[in-house]
């Protein structure tokens, strides 16, 4: 897994990537109440919001670390958002990537979090 500054993790899965929300973000939100994601076949763009996550406190945009086409949406995360964790099983989207930004390793991300 590699991580973006906007707390999205990215993991290669064959010729697509899986993206999800980091454990840090989930705990900072105080629990995920609902996730709004794009549809299959939608295009998402690097640096732009591809959806949002609702917590009791607020609605937070999810900023995409990649550009590409959504191949699959994880319905489980939409149906049971309260069970979302920062692991691979809680992936949100599978994307066929056309562009992506530089991402941090897990260690680099952990160090980055200290600086916040």
């Amino acid at each position, binding site marked *: 897994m590699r991580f973006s500054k906007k707390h999205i993790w990215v993991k290669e899965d064959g010729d697509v990537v899986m993206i999800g929300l980091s454990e840090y973000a989930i705990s900072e939100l105080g629990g995920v109440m609902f996730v709004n994601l794009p549809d299959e076949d939608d295009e998402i763009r690097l640096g732009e919001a591809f959806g949002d996550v*609702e*917590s009791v406190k607020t609605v937070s945009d999810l900023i995409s670390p990649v550009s590409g086409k959504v191949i699959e949406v994880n319905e489980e995360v939409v149906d049971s958002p309260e069970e979302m964790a920062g692991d691979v099983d809680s992936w949100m989207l599978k994307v066929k990537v056309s562009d992506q930004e530089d991402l941090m390793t897990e260690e680099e991300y952990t160090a980055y979090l200290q600086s916040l």
Partner: protein
Amino acid sequence: MDRKKYDLAIIGGGPAGYSAAFEAAKYNMSCVLFEKDKLGGTCLHRGCVPTKYLNKVAGMYKEVQTCESYGIKINRDDTNIDFVETKKREAEIVDKLAHDLEKNLLAHSIDIVYAEAYIEKDVIKTVSGDEYEASKIIIATGGEPADISSDMEINVADAPGKMMTDVADAPAKMMTNSENISVAGVINTNQLLEMREIPEKLTILGGGVTAVEFAYIYATLGSKVTIFIRGKALLRNWDKDIVTAVTQSLKKAGVVINTKTDFSKLSIAGDEVVLSALGRKPVLPKGYGENADDKIVVVGDARKDSTMLAHVAMAEGRAAVREMVATSCSDKMGCYTSCIFVDKEVASVGLTEAEAIEVGIEAISCRYVMYSNARVLISDDGRSFIKLVADKNTKKLIGAQLYCDRAGDMVAELATVIDNEIDIAKAAAVIRPHPSYCEDITAAFDMLLEKL
């Protein structure tokens, strides 16, 4: 032959027709209203009222199943639905409303003729041969469920006489293809509302408001409901957040949603009740030509471009009469609301963000989710939201989409803000009651102000 003469003749006694009649009475116009079936039209007898009643019954049934969490202990094994009783009460409510409507029309000196009327060279005639003349005619003949289009092939296994070519032979329950081929086993919404039992399995063709409302009602009452739609998602053209919320609501009720269906070859098991909710079409009286005639105005569902909303039909009926009387009041139609009733209410007024962007408006939106609303938590812990859309340049509210209990009532205040271009800061400053659902409109406006 003695012809009765009137200032205004209205063909059709549904929302558009009766609203026009009451408006005419305000201006002391002599008015005759023709109704071939029952006053109140589709709205009262086959649409708005019966479905909202069934939605209420579904909601009550659900509450009974969850009231233990409030400390109310009931013997749930005894709970069952006597649907014959349910439909009996529905009929009582509908009949009362129709009866009161008739009394009200007569009290306003409106003549009612219970007959099918048609137009022949400027004269209105009924099948029994009576003739009427009027200076102006309003056509408010409504609409009906559309036939299944001929490019669809829907086979319901073991349905009596699978494909019948003679409509005259088709038992009353059949839907027709537009080439007069009956599609065996498929019923329309009128026929579903006549059923006095809850189907064990219900398949619904279509994903619009009608399909969604019936899916929720019957799934909650215990039917195993399956939806088939052509597209990717339910509620085409509705705001994305609303589509997500309604889809979740149906899934939680156990509805199975099949998207991207190929309707040119669809097979359904024979033990299903199959409802076609694929649209409606206008109905026009015989003799009404397409030529422009400023003596005749078409209002409501009878219009080709109809919104198929009763309140819009009412507004059109009233506006048509005011135009005849040529009053100087402004007849600019305000924004109108569309509602959906599922586990919560949906109300959408004005533009969605997507619609606004499409017409070149620099639109911004905010979604206020009501997770901390006391009334929401008291009644359930489901997700409700108020979404507001504004024009970044004019800084005015241009649309709102709500998903929460009472959305259909809360939205009226937002329609007022939009129609009257009320300053958003002023709208936010209104002191709304607490604890209420509507108080979160303040929070939503505050959220919007931060973005503007």
